[in-house]
């Protein structure tokens, strides 16, 4: 083989085209000074499709086959087969941003429906097409808060249960806007309202909380958090996801101004953290929303039609004054999430969410019966996951479990975090048995 298998020119065609252009060889078209011409090699051998598939799969096959009980912001639910089959359709996957809405009504409508799903679940007026993931969505929320707040201010408060990595993203995105990110304490896996009240002042632009939290607890006083933020003219940003939101308190009802989160809990398998950033907010912030928005309009025949709208917020028009630098986003992941949500429907979503309350409750109770384990560590309701206290050092427990074929997260010296969903539920008996082996 020589050349790209995806560049279809025959030699005769190449010659005819060179003739038309008026050069003898393609190389003449490269207007590159000799001094910066590359005359080396990458050293990558061309391969047949069969060999390329085998080479990639050979590498990946080195991963150990573990039953994963990992969560902490990246989750897996069973993805209906329909999601793969429909999202792989050429017209969806090989298209790009809908700059020409007249020939991209299909994707626009899907994104409009995805926005609608989030509007319904959050109770807020506006949802965009996607951010990269929860961490970057939170960062964009902080920047929006900084932009829209009536008075100046530079503090963003996040609870201590948030992943360090997410805080790092938040700090990186907001440093340029001179925002300071501070963590506030929690109490037994919920916001410590008194502690939060102590640190909150009028210099705060955004208060963040999660429901469920990164450690799996369900927050019980979110409206108080919202009130507290409101008292200081700060925005209240809630982190959640579309499955949780289908049963937990509606974000709008607890005073959330912005909702962020990761909607890749729908539509995606575990994918090493690949996300789908949710961004929804009150309608009053519409012109400050980051990212793409699809709106309904009409075409010249008066038929309903969809189009990207309010593009003057965006970088390709507003440049350095854009609401965000985002261009390529997670549209196809949003398509997958939308199909998954549609497959579940209202009943299916609620049923799934209810199981995410029951499964960790039941598994925690079983682990609590294991000598050397107390679970759940927090006296709260849980969603998908929970902390378990281990008498033995947690890192050793995690390592021993790994040797038995299970992945769990050791979050500190004596706590492991266990996430259980419909995707790994089948392995819970084996996990409990393994805990019996390693925990005491």
């Amino acid at each position: 083989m020589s050349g790209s298998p995806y560049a279809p020119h025959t030699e005769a065609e190449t010659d005819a085209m060179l003739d038309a252009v008026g050069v003898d060889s393609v190389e003449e078209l490269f207007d590159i000074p000799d001094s910066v011409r590359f005359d080396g090699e990458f050293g990558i051998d061309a391969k047949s499709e069969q060999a390329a598939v085998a080479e990639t799969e050979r590498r990946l096959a080195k991963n150990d086959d573990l039953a994963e009980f990992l969560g902490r912001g990246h989750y897996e639910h069973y993805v209906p087969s329909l999601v793969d089959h429909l999202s792989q359709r050429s017209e969806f996957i090989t298209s790009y941003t809908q700059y020409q809405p007249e020939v991209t009504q299909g994707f626009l409508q899907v994104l409009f429906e995805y926005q609608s799903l989030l509007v319904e679940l959050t109770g807020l007026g506006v949802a965009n097409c996607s951010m990269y993931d929860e961490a970057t969505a939170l960062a964009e929320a902080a920047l929006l808060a900084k932009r829209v707040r009536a008075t100046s201010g530079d503090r963003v408060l996040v609870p201590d249960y948030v992943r360090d990595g997410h805080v790092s993203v938040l700090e990186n995105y907001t440093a340029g806007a001179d925002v300071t990110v501070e963590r506030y304490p929690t109490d037994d896996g919920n916001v410590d309202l008194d502690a939060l009240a102590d640190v909150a002042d009028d210099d705060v632009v955004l208060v963040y909380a999660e429901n469920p939290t990164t450690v799996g607890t369900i927050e019980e006083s979110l409206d108080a958090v919202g009130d507290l933020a409101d008292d200081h003219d700060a925005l209240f940003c809630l982190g959640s996801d579309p499955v949780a939101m289908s049963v937990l308190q509606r974000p709008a009802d607890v005073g959330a101004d912005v909702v962020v989160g990761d909607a890749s809990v729908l539509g995606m398998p575990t994918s090493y953290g690949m996300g789908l950033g949710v961004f929804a907010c009150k309608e009053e912030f519409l012109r400050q929303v980051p990212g793409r928005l699809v709106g309904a309009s009409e075409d010249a025949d008066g038929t309903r039609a969809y189009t990207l709208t309010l593009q003057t917020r965006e970088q390709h028009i507003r440049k350095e004054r854009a609401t965000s630098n985002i261009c390529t986003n997670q549209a196809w992941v949003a398509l997958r999430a939308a199909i998954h949500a549609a497959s579940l429907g209202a009943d299916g979503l609620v049923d799934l969410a209810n199981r995410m309350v029951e499964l960790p409750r039941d598994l925690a109770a079983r682990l609590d019966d294991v000598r050397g384990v107390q679970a759940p560590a927090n006296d709260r309701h849980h969603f998908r996951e929970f902390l378990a206290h281990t008498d033995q050092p947690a890192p050793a427990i995690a390592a021993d479990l790994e040797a038995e074929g299970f992945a769990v997260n050791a979050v500190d010296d004596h706590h492991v975090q266990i996430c259980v969903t419909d995707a790994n539920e089948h392995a819970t008996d084996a996990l409990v048995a393994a805990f019996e082996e390693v925990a005491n």
Partner: protein
Amino acid sequence: NYEPLLSEKDQTSVDVDSPLPDDLTRDDVTLPSLEEPELARHYVRLSQQNYGVDSGPYPLGSCTMKYNPRFTEDVAAVDDASVHPDRSGDSVQGTLQLQYDLQDYLGRIGGMDAVTLQPPAGAAGEFAGILLAEAYHEANGEGHRDEVVVPDAAHGTNFASAALGGYDVVEIPSGDDGRVDIDALEAALGENTAALMLTNPNTLGLFERNIEQISEMVHDAGGLLYYDGANLNALLGRARPGDMGFDIMHFNVHKTFATPHGGGGPGAGPVGVTEDLAEFLPDPHVRKTESGQYERYTPERSVGKVHGFEGNWLVLVKAFAYIDRLGDDGLSDASAKAVLNANYLAEQVEYDVPLGPFHHEFVASAGDQDAADVAKRMLDYGVHPPTTKWPELVDEALMTEPTEVETKSNLDDLADAFNAVAGEDDETLANAPTRTTARLIDQTTAARNPRLSWHDLD
């Protein structure tokens, strides 16, 4: 042809009855609840109302809409690709090796010493690059540098990414030849210059011939040179940003390495740097130990994270498989044919095509016609139009990038579409499109009266 919204087919209200106390739950949720047969039809019909690369030519300048080979979807779908980011390094040696090897491949292709895969898109790569530049200057006691220089023809993301990093953007005008104006650059550079962001070839498809001089000027001023990888498809095997003096670059794998654009994403925007900047790369990075194992580590002075986890991993798997299939020969040929196609098409198009010589794209001028109307009318000829009205250096710009995947015959047909529209009157253009799923869509109403969910419809 109108396909109703899911909400127009069904709305089901469910009272939430949950194992949780009532005060922790919402009252109800109302969503369409359709069975699978109707859903399959809904999305099949919607897909048929969508134009993709597999539908026909998609010469959207600057977006590099190549064919997406399907075998890369298969390798991204294998179970072993689906692991959780909190897995121990020991237990995901396969994933780490693939990350390491892709870092290595990209380093070789870009001529860079180290590459992070974490940024989830091109703009995220730019922003990561800005963070790296800032950390570098800070570490060198040059934290006062607060300006990023950007040519006027640069992608909008360059401006926005620099601004996101807190930098003042210094925009410099292009020269008459469409390239960096050396004098304007000289004037813009100074002791506050943190970096110059440059696309090469630039958005007009022109190679910045003075790149070595530019590099020297920026470096002499104490700044760093940033390469926007959007147009890398023009150079594979012919020139490498690292060799031209760039310190930082991002790759758009969904452009150069044919991972699907997915209706707007996900992409991935790996960032390469020279040795001097490697210690600042995002956390974690992957390296190979002496024993041949792969491990994650935090670079010594890491800027931290730009994505909650490890970026758009499944996209990176596809990019690896594509690069591995094409190899040196295939990548080099891809650029050759991309450049040949752009030049050939530029010859066939009757619109004025100023400037040149072109690499992977050219910018024609619609002249007296409105470029946006030209685009709408081209839809009637069954092809996707070029990017329009940008860069503004060319009047009524038609920014055209056919990529290497089009045959001569397709290019001839595409040229026929351009040329047919070129001969049409303004009224025909203004009434276009007439043969598409939707006729011309009213943008003004959409923006003035935003209806952004089915809740907003009557």
